[in-house]
């Protein structure tokens, strides 16, 4: 079948549809660059969605837990090997994604007789200033986009991402504390999960009440990459209580 080019294209197209269908209903994850660090946020039903990768690096993702786990382990292995054979400062997200994760995800996606990875990922690297923070949006097929600082979103439906990104970028202006940002990201999470339109977003009070109700029986995971180094490992898991939320 795959000897014929159009059959191969059709098979790859089918895989895209299959992956997108499988990712429907996945709980969105976020990363936001702030003056004091990078905040990562995910809401799940007990399965972890936010992880520490290395000293200055963290990962958040949605998808099948086993696939997220495989990619997490690959990234951790590569980062620690790099740090040991060279130096921890040489571990960079750009290299980790460009030369490690992305090619492997692409190869896997195009091998149409093996199961594709059911993941959408967000990787973060803390820099010396917010402008030097790096956020990478990595897709199941190995394609990726990078951005310096700002806010990045992974939604289960790719169409929703630009709208929520625009809304968050606009609404987050002036919100520099972890508490304010976590609250705002949770509002965006509620809007996405409850299928609210970002063209006519509900008022703030409704959004806040919405996330509190919807997250009541779920686990809100918060990860913090601190900008000021008190220790080599900058990552710290946070709780809503720590942020007075």
């Amino acid at each position, binding site marked *: 079948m795959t000897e014929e080019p159009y059959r191969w294209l059709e098979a790859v197209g089918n895989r895209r549809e299959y992956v997108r269908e499988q990712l429907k209903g996945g709980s969105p994850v976020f990363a936001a660059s702030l003056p004091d660090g990078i905040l990562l946020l995910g809401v799940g039903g007990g399965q*972890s969605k936010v992880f520490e990768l290395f000293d200055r690096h963290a990962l958040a993702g949605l998808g099948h837990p086993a696939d997220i786990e495989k990619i997490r382990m690959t990234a951790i292995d590569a980062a620690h090997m790099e740090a*040991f*054979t060279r130096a921890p400062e040489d571990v960079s997200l750009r290299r980790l994604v460009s030369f490690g994760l992305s090619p*492997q995800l692409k190869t896997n996606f195009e091998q149409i007789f093996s199961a594709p*990875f059911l993941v959408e990922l967000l990787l973060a690297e803390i820099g010396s200033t917010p402008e030097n923070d790096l956020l990478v949006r990595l897709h199941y097929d190995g394609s990726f986009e990078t951005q310096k600082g700002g806010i990045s979103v992974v939604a289960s439906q790719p169409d929703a991402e630009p709208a929520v990104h625009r809304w968050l970028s606009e609404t987050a202006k002036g919100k520099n504390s972890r508490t304010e940002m976590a609250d705002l990201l949770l509002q965006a999470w509620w809007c996405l999960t409850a299928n609210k339109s970002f063209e006519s977003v509900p008022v703030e009070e409704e959004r806040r009440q919405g996330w509190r109700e919807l997250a009541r029986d779920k686990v809100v995971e918060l990860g913090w990459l601190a900008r000021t180094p008190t220790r080599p490992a900058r990552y710290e898991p946070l709780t809503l209580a720590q942020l007075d939320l």
Partner: protein
Amino acid sequence: MSRMPSIAGDFLSLLTEHKLPPFRPNATAGAPIETQATTVFAFHFAEGILMAGDRRATAGNVIVTDRVDKVIEIDATSLLAIAGVPATAFEMARVLQTSFEYYRRSQLQSLSLSAKVRALARLLRENLPMTMQGVGIVVPLFAGLDHSVSPAKPQVYFYDPLGAQFQAVGYAASGSGSGTIRSILSFQESHGTPRPSEMNLKQAVQFGLRLLMTASEFDSATGGVNPATETFATIKLLRSSGVETITEQQQKQFLNS
């Protein structure tokens, strides 16, 4: 994409898979003989453990430098004090640092204190050929938090060059100046007031600095503490909350107060 390592979360296995074992199995017969001389020690005080070391590195009768840190923070709750051949000792510290963090991040939990203590014993055993040939001996001290009790309790371990590990009840010392240190600590523990385990932070730091001053009087390979020349020690604390460094400035203040 990812393969299961032979031992989950074991960084040494990962290094071996990549054909990068940290220690050579055999030393060459013509390897130069390196001397080792130092003084490191740790003792329990009222708030946890104080671990300290002088900063001198020697090769024979030559002083190489007086700015070496021999007490190393392995992770947020572990300290290593090294005595022995620096090249091997610093490599062991690097392996432990990466191994502990690799396990914590990959397995999503910290290594137990017992596993950390054995990890160092394993490195010492793997270094046995170098130790037996007298070119790579390392006799370290290790301090970590025992999380099996609440609040977590700091503990000190000492090793022999072959990798046997022993828990220190009150104190431990290693290196060429350790005989002096052990004598003073033993005397203070039995007859002194306050005993080291009863000392507050200020008393413990002062005591630690004076121990090193005394050791340097009797051992030329131990760097002394001299506020006049801004020569201080490396001092780190391990409390239930984790590791803390006593800076040179703080040492100066404690000595002058």
